[in-house]
């Protein structure tokens, strides 16, 4: 049976697993944005936090994903449901690009612009929301882009702890030694990753501040 036939025959399951996959990645990335952006902003205000926070986020990245799922299994509320576990793990992996790009994006704002803003009497909050964040947005979106593409790949491992997603097919196919089934999981996952990459790439370009749109340095901080 070729891949196309397999997908057609199982289209309800393929759709369901794809939606599960998108859900795992979507929720975990949203959480990572909600936590990573404030942390990144914090680093620009208290440079002393840079080493501990970026260091921790870096260490998390080095933990092999299967091991991280394993570590989290005994955690009380988290370990009780596979999807919670998967979302937490994916969120942890997505933190680093978000913290780092938020920080780098704000740091890359022209110091004379910040000085002018401060000198004319903007409060710290006004400076952040009216000047620094809008100017850093392109770099921050680049971070979200990296995090999302990374998560789409990693989320396939989540099937190992029973969290569902397209990884189901990959593990099932491995167990059955059936390449068609593996591909039925791997190909849609790859397509999702490409789609996310293109979509965020477009957004990144659109949201880059007026003056840098032509220079194209805004994505320099992505990994």
């Amino acid at each position, binding site marked *: 049976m070729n891949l196309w036939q397999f997908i057609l025959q199982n289209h309800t399951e393929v759709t369901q697993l794809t939606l599960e996959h998108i859900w795992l990645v979507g929720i975990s990335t949203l959480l990572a944005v909600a936590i990573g952006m404030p942390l990144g902003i914090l680093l620009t205000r208290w440079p002393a936090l840079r080493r501990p926070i970026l260091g921790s986020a870096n260490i998390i990245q080095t933990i092999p994903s299967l091991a991280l799922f394993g570590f989290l299994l005994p955690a009380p509320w988290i370990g009780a449901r596979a999807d919670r576990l998967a979302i937490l793990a994916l969120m942890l992996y997505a933190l680093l690009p978000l913290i780092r790009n938020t920080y780098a994006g704000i740091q890359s704002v*022209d110091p*004379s*612009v*910040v*000085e*002018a*803003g*401060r*000198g*004319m*009497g*903007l*409060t710290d909050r*006004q400076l952040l929301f*009216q*000047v620094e964040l*809008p*100017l850093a947005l392109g770099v921050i979106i680049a971070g979200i882009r990296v995090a999302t593409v990374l998560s789409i790949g990693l989320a396939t491992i989540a099937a190992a702890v029973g969290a569902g997603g397209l990884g189901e097919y990959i593990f099932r196919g491995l167990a059955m030694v059936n390449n068609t089934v593996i591909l039925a999981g791997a190909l849609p996952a790859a397509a999702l990753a490409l789609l996310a990459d293109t979509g965020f790439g477009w957004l990144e370009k659109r949201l880059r*501040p*007026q*003056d*840098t749109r032509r220079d194209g340095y805004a994505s320099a901080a992505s990994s």
Partner: protein
Amino acid sequence: MDSAAAIEFHRVSYHPQGEAILHDLSLAIERGETLVLLGRSGSGKTTTLKLINRLLTPTSGEIRVAGRALPEWDVIRLRRMIGYVIQEVGLFPHFTIEKNIGLVPKIENWSRERIRQRVEELLHLVGLDPQLATRYPRELSGGQRQRVGVARALAADPPILLMDEPFGALDPLTRAQLQREFLDLEARLGKTVVFVTHDLNEALLVGTRIALLEAGRLVTLNTREEFLRCREPLVIAYRNAFSPDFNGERGRV
């Protein structure tokens, strides 16, 4: 306490991490005058300027603005009554010219119509076509950008203007033009201006008084005429560096 001086420095020193950037500076800046802080790089002139709007805090001594000591001021209120113009201009690249100039009025909750009128008035005042209002900073030339910088600093009609080498990055022709326009503007508006430059010609052109700084110390504080006659060695050196003619026959090298 009411005082005639717009800005007073009383024995002000600034020693971050023990490094003597500014040492024991005392001077008073009168209302409506243009005081030039003249000196080479590292002489402490920009530091002096930033101490006034509290971008920096003195290590010791006291600074008063409009008779009130700086710590008594709410720092945001203080900065909003002091226009600030820097060499790099620092326009907000993601805002149109109109939004750049109108930012402080907007934060101060002016009505939209009043902001629009003010922006138009200011563009006119600094010699720019009001049609530029909808453009972005990157679409303007260096001279136009600095004009916008001045307009932005004047937006909320602050009584004091701090200018840090405002024309330093411009080509000589544009610079000369902006200097002349600044003189016109200052004659009309009568702001208290503190003007930082390392250019003696500019200092003599715009300044009512000139404070010469060297290595964080005030060397002399003279009117333009006094400065040209002053026998202080550093003043002579300055005049020589710019034009030996300033020193007459005897001072000629």
